[in-house]
């Protein structure tokens, strides 16, 4: 690292890229530790300032998470937190080192209205138009309801009843996830979170869903693997095969190994050698991640990438059909229909998607 820093880098570009890849806090710490005498003081100060802001925000968010989890527990709603401060602690051993913008909490779909009341007791509310309809909360294809903190607080909380959108066809059972949940110590007390095995699958799915937008999404997987040598890989692989997400898992592992030297067991290496598509996908993602000019404008290419990341034909078909037709909360927000006409949202969605993609394509051309 020192050798690299001594070469005379474009430090402004380094800072910009650290921001884009969500690595400011990690970079600030590493440069402060190992290269403080080489890096321009202005750059160090700027990074430290940003890292401090992240640390402050993250502790604030952690405090909010503790309040929310306590309110859910008081209402006897089983819940687990994932990503956010929990992932920061699991991967880096510290909530300050990973920037996150919102909190993610998973509960059973049957308790979503109870959870809404618990959230309301803390001043958290869904967007006004969502709040209008109780039925919207039960929209089958909707997997997550956003809640906004009291007043105009910027903190958002995503209340999940599934890990992934229905169209993405990632059938990890919520009840089973909640049963396998474990506790983790956070500032302010322990909270429930996903088991490491489930979390790894979820992170690989999440990265794939968003086409691996930043190096941090890979780094957190690498650090999770490093911090969890006792990971039960057999369970991870069998669960991935059962849910048709083995290729997504392998892609995440492959990226973590290539970019951050993450340790992988022989069984995973064998699986990587078996699935040649993973190598091609890894190369695609790496080239984008390491391209300083890439703007991650994946709006149009994303569906194709998603399809390539699925190993089973039925998952690809589901992705296509559900992606085109399955209603989302945004459809209900665009067109308000009474409960009896809800089936019509299956027509509203394709119309809205067509308009959205049409505009995106038109903009590109």
């Amino acid at each position, binding site marked *: 690292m020192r050798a690299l820093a001594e070469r005379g880098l474009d430090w402004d570009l380094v800072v910009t890229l650290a*921001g884009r890849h969500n690595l400011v806090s990690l970079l600030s710490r590493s440069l402060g530790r190992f290269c403080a005498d080489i890096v321009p003081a202005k750059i160090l100060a700027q990074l430290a300032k940003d890292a401090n*802001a992240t640390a402050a925000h*993250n502790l604030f968010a*952690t405090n909010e998470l503790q309040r929310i989890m306590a309110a859910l527990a008081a209402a006897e709603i089983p819940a687990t937190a994932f990503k956010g401060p929990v992932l920061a602690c699991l991967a880096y051993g*510290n909530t300050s080192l990973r920037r996150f913008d919102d909190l993610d909490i998973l509960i059973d779909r049957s308790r979503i209205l109870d959870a809404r009341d618990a959230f309301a007791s803390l001043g958290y509310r869904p967007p006004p138009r969502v709040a209008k309809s109780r039925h919207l909360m039960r929209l089958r294809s909707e997997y997550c309801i956003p809640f906004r903190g009291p*007043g105009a607080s910027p903190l958002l909380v995503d209340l999940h009843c599934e890990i992934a959108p229905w169209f993405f066809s990632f059938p990890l059972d919520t009840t089973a996830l909640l049963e396998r949940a474990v506790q983790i110590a956070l500032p302010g007390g322990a909270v429930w979170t996903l088991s490491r095995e489930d979390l790894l699958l979820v992170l690989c799915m999440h990265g794939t*869903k968003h086409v691996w937008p930043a190096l941090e999404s890979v780094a957190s997987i690498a650090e999770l693997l490093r911090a969890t040598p006792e990971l039960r890989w057999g369970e991870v692989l069998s669960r991935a095969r059962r849910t048709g997400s083995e290729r997504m898992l392998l892609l995440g592992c492959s990226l973590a190994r290539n970019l951050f030297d993450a340790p992988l067991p022989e069984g995973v290496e064998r699986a990587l050698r078996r699935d040649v598509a993973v190598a091609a996908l890894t190369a695609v993602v790496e080239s984008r991640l390491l391209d300083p000019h890439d703007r991650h404008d994946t709006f149009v290419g994303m569906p194709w990438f998603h399809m390539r990341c699925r190993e089973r034909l039925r998952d690809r078909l589901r992705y296509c059909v559900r992606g085109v037709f399955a209603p989302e909360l945004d459809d209900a927000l665009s067109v308000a229909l009474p409960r009896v006409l809800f089936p019509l949202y299956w027509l509203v969605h394709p119309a809205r998607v067509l308009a959205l993609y049409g505009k995106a394509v038109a903009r590109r051309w």
Partner: protein
Amino acid sequence: MLPLSRTEKLLVEELDEDLVIYDEERHKAHRLNGTAAFVWRRCDGRTTVAQIAALLAAKTGDAVGDDVVLLALRQLQSASLLRANGRTAARPVGIPRRELLKTAALFAVVLPAVTTILVPTPAQAASPATPTATPKPTATPTPTPTPKPPAAGVWCVGVVNTMEGVNPDGVVGPTATTPGSTVCIPCPASGTCKTPMELRWRRGPTAGTCIIIVTVKPGACAACPAGGIRLLPPVGTNGGWYVV
């Protein structure tokens, strides 16, 4: 003097030797450098200032005067991280900075530092952090001689490449993307547009993006075209605004 640290309603996170402390009551966060963190941890109501100085000296391997500890206590107290204790009363002490610097230089001690960090609160999020003259959106905007006012509720949607909504031209800063805040977006028709707009955002189609929704108040803009505010084309590495 037996200083006692406050521990309740605080969330504490270690960051190497430093501590980051979030004060739930005051909605403030503080970063304590290694020296300040060391002193704060030893304020147990039983250890004297001289003893803390001796412990600090033992840790650093250098002689440490009481004044370094007193400086830390003063900073901790002003950050409300010490408990008001009848016996201990860590009252503010006036130590000349020159003296302290001399001490620090003499003994190679890192001076204690407690940095207060801004934490987003509902009040702060409601208005931009930078105290600009940007007017707040009002229900009844000031009527202006408007040749072609934008229609009420015109939606301008922008996609930016970061969740913070950093606009590369620097006009719309991260704070401007907080829900409900007021922004001014340069408009080709009028240069820097000072029109009050309501800004909201929601998640974009891909990770790290958000969709900015700007509502122009009816009749608020004198110079913008009737179709709505034209936003800047995308430029720079952080993305930009798109007209939709």
